[in-house]
Every structure is written in structure tokens, then in C-alpha cells.
């Protein structure tokens, strides 16, 4: 009999709790706090992968939307786009999830809006309309290029309903192919072209077997490429080279490091170079590195690759006593005994080990690198790193 009652009440409790799935929108409370803490002043809605200010999409097509916000001083603030109260003006035409995923259900025009705390974003209009790709739109971008100076080009699709839309996949190519290099653009339907050979070049965009093209001209304004000479690096070190393009009618050179073609023309057993001009020392000796823009214009620099660095040494030892407020310059060199000629203080990276930087600070800024200042009493480790080799200083502030 007692067991029977226990079962009944337990059953009752379970039924009550089962009926009581959580209800209530926590965001009513959390979003005002979030908006307050961010000093959120404005919100704006944008498609995740497009800069369009309005969109046309097919029914059943899903589009992700994101939020951007600014604070009271107009500075942008990080604000999540997920778990928000997104809404559409007509749920018969489209739906949008709490994570900002929009999906059209039937043809019509809807406005998307969202509210965070008391801050509401201006509506973003989406036209839900069925259409298929009819033609590739105009390729937008400069008609003239300077050699090895990248330009961005973009296009869009013109659909059968007359609407311009972003293209999901665009294949870009150039004719002649050796006249330049293509790099994927940051926005949907865009490409970055860097021309190398003077003369005409045709840029072609293809999507769904439809193509559009634009004829461009690469001028001959690049006169020479400048590379620093007399550089050296250790066999286990890296060195970033910078290519400067000297253009006609321009008083100062332009950085074309990422546009030129880098190669080792001599000493490939001693050094290697990547597409961005980063040289890696391999073995002691010398190597010649070339930066070329097209077949005709190039520059070569000779590098000396020295023996591997295995050790850093401090000038005057690694145990440093400081008083609060006292500043001291730390110095390091390669080798086993400090040598002023091998000083790498300014080339090393300096920092306090761990997250507690209240005891001492160390400068990692050009011309003051290695300057340590006592802040409060205690002991802290300062580390200097150069070419993957580190040395620790024990700083005792008293």
C-alpha cells in the first residue's frame, strides 16, 4: 500500500515536471545587458557573403545574414549574429532562424529585422523571385593595370527575372595565361588580378557555362624592381625579403612583394624562398634570390647563409636585480660569449613569460627592445627569442 502511494506521487511529480519544459525567452533579460555593456548604438543587417544592400533570391534558397553594430562613438563592436530574435515582415513569403538563416518559401518581398535590447536594425529587403542565370553581368574594375600591382574585379549574374544576383561559383581566367596571375577575391564573384606582361589581356568570368569578358591593358610603367643587398641569415633562420617596384612618373616605389614571382636562381641547397618572399636558410653558404614581374623585369639579391644559431648569450648575465621604477637595458648576442658585433637585441622578440606582467615590463618596440622596467616587488621571467632560440632573464624587483 505504501509503495502504491509512493509510485502515484512519484508519477505525479514526473508528469508535472514533464509538462514543465523550460519556457520563457532569456534574451529579454540578457540582451539589454549586452547592449548596455557594448554601449550599442546602431545595428545593421548584411548578407554573410555579399556587400549588397538588398537581395533577390529563389524560393527555397537559404541565405545567412549577419549583424554589425557600432557604439555611441561610432566605433564598430563585435556582436554575435546567432541566437537573435530575427524576424521577417511576412512569414508566408520567407522564414528566418534565430541564427539568421533566411529561407524564401514563395515569391514576394519581405523585410528582415532584428532587435538587440532596445536597438533595432533598419530593415533589409529581400525579394523572393524565381529566376535562372541568363547572362554574366559586366565585369567591374579598372581597364588599365600597372605590372605587378593587383586590381580587384567583380561581376554578377543577371537572372531571367531581370534581377542582378551574386554568383555562387565563378570561374575566372585570363588570355594569354602568362600575362598575369589570379588570386581569389574576398567577396563573392570577385577576383584579384596582377598583370605581369605589358599589352592587352582578356579577363573572363564563367558560371553555369555562361561567360562574360573584359579586355584590359597592362601598361609598361614598371621600370625596375628593387631588392636589398648584402643580407645574411643563419641556416636555421628565416628572412622576409621586400620587393619594391619603381614605376614611371611615380616618385616613391611601391611594395610589390606579394605580386612578384620569387625563385632561387643559385644555391637552392643553401636557401629556399616561398611565394611571399620569405627566405629560409638551409645550409651555410650563399644563394641568389630573384624577384620577377613577367619575363623581362627582375631583380636578384645575393644572400649569405651563416652557421646555425644554437645559443644566445646575455651581456652581463641573466639574473637582474631592479628596484621599483628602475629601467635597465638588456642585451643579447649570438654565440657563447657576448659579442657587440653579433648583438641581436633589436632583432629579437622580447616578452614577459606568463600572464602576470605587473612585476616588470619589457619593451618589444623598435629602438627600445630589451628595456626592462621594475613595476612592483616580485620575480618574473623575461624571455628574448631570435631565430627559434630563446634566452631567459630572471628579473628580481625589490
Amino acid at each position, binding site marked *: 500500500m505504501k509503495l502504491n502511494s509512493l509510485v502515484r*506521487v512519484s508519477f505525479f511529480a514526473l508528469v*508535472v515536471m514533464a509538462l514543465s519544459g523550460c519556457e520563457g525567452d*532569456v534574451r*529579454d533579460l*540578457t540582451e*539589454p545587458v549586452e547592449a*548596455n555593456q557594448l554601449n550599442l548604438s546602431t545595428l545593421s543587417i548584411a548578407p554573410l557573403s555579399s556587400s549588397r544592400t538588398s537581395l533577390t533570391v529563389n524560393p527555397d534558397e537559404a541565405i545567412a545574414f549577419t549583424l554589425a553594430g557600432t557604439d555611441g562613438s561610432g566605433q564598430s563592436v563585435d556582436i554575435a549574429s546567432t541566437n537573435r530574435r530575427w524576424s521577417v515582415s511576412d512569414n508566408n513569403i520567407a522564414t528566418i532562424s534565430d541564427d539568421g538563416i533566411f529561407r524564401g518559401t514563395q515569391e514576394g518581398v519581405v523585410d528582415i529585422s532584428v532587435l538587440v535590447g532596445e536597438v533595432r536594425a533598419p530593415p533589409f529587403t529581400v525579394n523572393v523571385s524565381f529566376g535562372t542565370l541568363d547572362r554574366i553581368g559586366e565585369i567591374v574594375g579598372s581597364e588599365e593595370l600597372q605590372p605587378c600591382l593587383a586590381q580587384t574585379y567583380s561581376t554578377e549574374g543577371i537572372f531571367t527575372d531581370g534581377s542582378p544576383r551574386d554568383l555562387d561559383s565563378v570561374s575566372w581566367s585570363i588570355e594569354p595565361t602568362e600575362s598575369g596571375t589570379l588570386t581569389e577575391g574576398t567577396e563573392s564573384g570577385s577576383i584579384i588580378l596582377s598583370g605581369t606582361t605589358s599589352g592587352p589581356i582578356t579577363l573572363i568570368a564563367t558560371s553555369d557555362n555562361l561567360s562574360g569578358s573584359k579586355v584590359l591593358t597592362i601598361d609598361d610603367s614598371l621600370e625596375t624592381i628593387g631588392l636589398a643587398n648584402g643580407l645574411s641569415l643563419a641556416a636555421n633562420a628565416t628572412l622576409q625579403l621586400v620587393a619594391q617596384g619603381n614605376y614611371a612618373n611615380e616618385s616613391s616605389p611601391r611594395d610589390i612583394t606579394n605580386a612578384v614571382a620569387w625563385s632561387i636562381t643559385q644555391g637552392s641547397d643553401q636557401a629556399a624562398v616561398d611565394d611571399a618572399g620569405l627566405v629560409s636558410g638551409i645550409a651555410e653558404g650563399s644563394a641568389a634570390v630573384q624577384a620577377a614581374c613577367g619575363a623581362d623585369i627582375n631583380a636578384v639579391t645575393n644572400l649569405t647563409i651563416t652557421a646555425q644559431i644554437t645559443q644566445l648569450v646575455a651581456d652581463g648575465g641573466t639574473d637582474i636585480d631592479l628596484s621599483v621604477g628602475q629601467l635597465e637595458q638588456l642585451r643579447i648576442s649570438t654565440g657563447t660569449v657576448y659579442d657587440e658585433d653579433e648583438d641581436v637585441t633589436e632583432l629579437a622578440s622580447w616578452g614577459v613569460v606568463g600572464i602576470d606582467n605587473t612585476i616588470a615590463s619589457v619593451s618589444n618596440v623598435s629602438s627600445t627592445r630589451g628595456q626592462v622596467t621594475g613595476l612592483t616587488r616580485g620575480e618574473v621571467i623575461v624571455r628574448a627569442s631570435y631565430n627559434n632560440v630563446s634566452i631567459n632573464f630572471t628579473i628580481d624587483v625589490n
Partner: protein
Amino acid sequence: MRWLLTLLLTLSSFSVAAESQFYGEFQLGVHGVQHSDLDFHPGFASGSVGMYVRRHIGVELFYDRGTSKAREDDFDIKVTEASGIAARFESPEQRGVQAYILLGYVTYSIDQYENLLNSRRLAQENFSGARVSLGLAKTLQRYRQAQLVFEYRNYDVDAPLNVDGFGLGIRVKLR
């Protein structure tokens, strides 16, 4: 209404009402309301009435009323009221002390005021979910129908909000 129906059906299924003993309880306490790195502790008063359907097993209705707001940063929070139903399971008494657990359903309202320069902005939301309470009850020596109670309660709610509380009160058993 579903939970009220469940209560009535459950109570009516106990055919031994003559054995039933009623009880009432009153508590004062503080809620803990946490969200968005803010931690509020508003006060509340709580009353409940119930019936033991068997020894150490009861079913009760409860009602809480917020007694004070709590402030954190630019915000004030008050759990304005809460009500619901619960099943009570008690341990046998050992040296005058019993442990108990309450399992039930609660609906509650939270008012959150944002204090602006010259105004206040109110956000109100109603929540509902499971209630779980764990407590200890000490029988009074001079008046054995009464017990002092100390209780921890948690109201189920979606993250990142957390609502719980501690209460201290007295329970009186009535024949």
C-alpha cells in the same frame, strides 16, 4: 491549467483522505539570479500549503512574492512572483531532523530595470519550468507540530540564465 488538473486527478486517486494531514509553510529568502556576468540577489517571501497523502509524502501548492530588488551595474532585478505545484518526499526523522526534496513545476516572472541617465527601462519576462528543492527540517521541541526549515531551491530555465535561492522558514502540520 494542465498541472492543476494533474494535481486534482492525483489527489482524487488517493482514497484514504481520512489519513491525510495538511501542512503550511512560510519562508523568507534570497534568490540568486545570474546572467551576463551579473549576479543578483533579490529577496522573496514564500508560502505553501499541502497535504500528506502518505507518511513522508506530500503534494503542495506554493506561491512566492518578491520582497526586494537587487542591483548590479546599471540593472535592478526582482523575481516579482512565482507559483506552482510540487511533490514532497521526506526522510524519516532522525534526532528531530528530516531531509526533504521537492519536485515540481513553477511559473515565475522577472522584472529587470535598466537605469538610464534620466529614466528606467523595464524588461519583463515570464518563465516556467521544473522546480527542485532540497532542504532540512528541524522539529521544535516545545511545539512538535512545527519545524524550522532551511531550503535550497532551483528553478529550471534555459542558459545563460540561472535562478535559484535559499530560504529559511517554518512549517506547521495541521490535522
